[in-house]
């Protein structure tokens, strides 16, 4: 069966249109990324090294907030695995970070993560592991200049941190 020339033209034109739409969207995305990285509001005021420093600080601090958010949102049964992964990620982030001030923020998050790990292991009756994580947490808080880094004080801090993220629950109706 012989196709009509109009049908062939139309099919080819349609294929070209679809392909160029796709190519155009890739080009548009890349241009937007480039344009935004160069024209973020106000960044032109800063000299290039300072802009780079600010960029890296913002990226690292945001990464820490996201880790925190996931740590609190993870369901109870997966929490310990998440905390251990978080500790690993924080250690890696700390090693790659070039900003000493941000390293201290990472230390605090690392300390809190070890504390969470210790408290979970304690609940699971793994005394040995709980002790190990608690000692790591205490060493970190000591290096951060905390005045009271006893087990009790740190547990109180973690409980308070946990309460920050919990929504007040309506009291159960009395029968």
């Amino acid at each position: 069966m012989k196709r009509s020339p109009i049908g062939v033209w139309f099919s080819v034109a349609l294929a070209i249109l679809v392909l160029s739409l796709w190519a155009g969207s890739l080009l548009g995305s890349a241009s937007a990324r480039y344009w935004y990285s160069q024209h973020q509001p106000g960044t032109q005021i800063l000299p290039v090294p300072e802009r780079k420093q600010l960029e890296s600080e913002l990226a690292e601090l945001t990464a820490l907030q996201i880790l925190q958010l996931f740590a609190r949102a993870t369901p109870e049964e997966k929490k310990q695995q998440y905390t251990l992964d978080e500790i690993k990620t924080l250690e890696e982030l700390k090693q790659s970070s070039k900003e000493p001030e941000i390293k201290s923020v990472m230390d605090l998050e690392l300390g809190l993560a070890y504390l969470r790990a210790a408290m979970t292991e304690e609940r699971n009756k793994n005394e040995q592991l709980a002790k190990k994580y608690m000692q790591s947490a205490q060493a970190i808080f000591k290096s951060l200049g905390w005045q009271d880094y006893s087990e009790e004080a740190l547990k109180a801090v973690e409980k308070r941190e946990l309460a920050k993220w919990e929504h007040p629950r309506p009291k159960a109706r009395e029968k």
Partner: protein
Amino acid sequence: MTPAARIVYLLALVIGLSVGALFAFWYKAELLKHYYDGRRFAASSELDDFSSMQYRHADAEHAKTGLLASARLLEKLETLSPETNQKLDLAGTYTHLAWLEDTANNAQASHDYMAKAQYWYAAGGHPGHSDSEIKALFSKRDKIFEKAGIR
């Protein structure tokens, strides 16, 4: 290929490329705007949490380092895009630094930090407050935050 076919194919190419690029640019730019706005909020909030924790639990030297780091980042962000809340946060940060100096009996340093706190507090829309008024306001705010479990 006839000249008419060439024109049709060329038109399809031009229309496809330009519509795809424009749409993707507009869509991605919106997403990036939200991402960058969110990133600034997340970063200052993370640093604010850190400096509050250090102020509450650490020795004066470490607490001061945390607060100064927070002030430095907030001032940089403020230069880039001014915001009222950011200015008030800066006033709060400098007031806390002044309290640390008060504890260490460094009257001059405390006075210098309070001058900065006054500047940012006025820039945040509250001019004409004395040092003691600003300290009282932030002390009250700290107590409210502590009671609410925010800090």
